[in-house]
């Protein structure tokens, strides 16, 4: 009962910047289809009386006042980067 095609798996992999072999595409096709089948089963439930939920209820954080507070170790964040130059993060060229 396959509800997702190999082409769709390949497209999702591409959007997620994953390089998959043919075997992996077949594997994920089976796994993702099973997930979708489970969702399809849930969909059979009558949810008429349930309001649409974008996120599960939790204790809402009290709103944050618009008051700046500097993070004390900004340079450490740059130091974590695989590549950097001076105060900058360095990445592969993105424009041609």
């Amino acid at each position, binding site marked *: 009962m396959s509800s997702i095609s190999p082409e769709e798996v390949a497209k999702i992999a591409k959007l997620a910047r994953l390089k998959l072999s043919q075997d992996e595409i077949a594997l994920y096709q089976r796994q993702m289809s099973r997930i979708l089948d489970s969702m399809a089963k849930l969909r059979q439930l009558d949810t008429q009386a349930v309001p649409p939920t974008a996120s599960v209820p939790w204790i809402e954080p009290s*709103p944050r006042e618009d008051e*700046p507070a500097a*993070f004390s170790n*900004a340079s450490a964040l740059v130091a974590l980067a695989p590549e950097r130059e001076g105060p900058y993060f360095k990445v592969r*060229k993105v*424009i*041609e």
Partner: protein
Amino acid sequence: MSATWEMICGLEVHVQLATRSKLFCSCATDGFGASPNSRICPVCTGQPGVLPVLNDGATKLAVKAALALGCEIREESIFARKNYFYPDLPKAYQISQYEKPLAENGSLAVAVKDAPSKTVGLQRIHIEEDAGKLLHAIGSEDLDYSLVDFNRAGIPLVEIVSKPDIRSPHEAYAYLQALKEILQFAGVSHCDMEKGEMRVDANISMRRAGEPFGTRVEIKNLNSFKAVRDALDYEGRRQIAALEKGERIIQETRLWDADVQATAPMRTKEEAHDYRYFPDPDLPPLHAPRSLVEAMRRELPELPEARRRRFIEDYGLSVSIANVLTGSRELADYVDAVAEITNPATATPTAGNLIATVLLGFLSERSLDLSRVIGRVTPESLGKLTLLIADGRISKTMSKEILAEMLNSGRDPEEILKERGGGQVLDEAQLAQWVRAAIDQSPKAVADVKSGKERAIGAIVGAAMKLSQGKANPTILNKLIKEELAP
């Protein structure tokens, strides 16, 4: 543009909300021009395990923007993740709003020169976070890699999407001006385009009148309102030329190149967009309850249109001067402050004219902002100057010279006047001497006045004025001559 073609245009405008801290973390928003990556933290650089916490100030400003633009506001809206990979986006998704934006169905009155004002519909306003800034060159030297500065990442924006109601490049320009004006007045944003606080993308297609909408093209890299106008003008012509040759318009994104005044297809390594939006599980729904909306409505200042009307009705300013003086909130506030001092209101038109001609002329000649001279020519000192005119102590011509001097030196108008020989002579004893001498010199005019030709008095005033070397106050001269010649 051929008369049979009609332009269909909608604008997407990103505006930076004037908060002090970022949208989901406490990093400061003053990073423009600061050292790179000095306003960053684990949240806005997308470190694992962090959670966003919404800035209450951003919500309030976004609600204000929605109110000022006449939108319906959702009590509960949803933050969504917009997924794409680009190095300016540390989390590989941007927190935005998709299915349920904060506000919808607004409108903006747009005054197009030489045409009746029209209303442009607004489709939606939603809150989202800004991305970082990429650097591809240092000075004129192109890099073979890119550098990233996240000072801007996470700064709160609202995206304001118009309906496709705009029909010409001029309308687009006027829409942007009206939008900027209203957002500045409402205190929502500074809209400083040079700092990237207001950014515009345009969607444009052409159709023959009455036909359905054609394929649209998105134009980016529009760095000024003028660039928007020029790019739409160019792109409209390009599309007409293609359509008239029987070609099809490709739905694509094009970049405006101001140097060559043309658009060209964008070339990036980015795949066709498929953002896979979904509700952000890290954030609860955004609540904008009635109470908040009403509180923001009360805080909303008088908006440009209302203020223009008040300037005309209460201050007696002409329509054109009122338009000029409501060009920014700062300027309009300045005018209000001057008007408080120049009461009664009769003196305000004089002050308004001085501001519109001399003061703004001075600023534009030197490309200065009003804020640069407010300290030098305070509303108090400009008010004083206006009162000197109202009291007849100086002429309008002289007032312009004095204001120019005030702008240059920041000195007090009274002081400048004293230095220049005290301006007009008001002393009645001195004036009476000139009046008597003038009467002696003008027997014919005197005879005419006595026989009832009131107008002949002008010749005597003229003679007295000449004797005073132009320093006498003409109103008092007039009064004294009448008294002298009264039967």
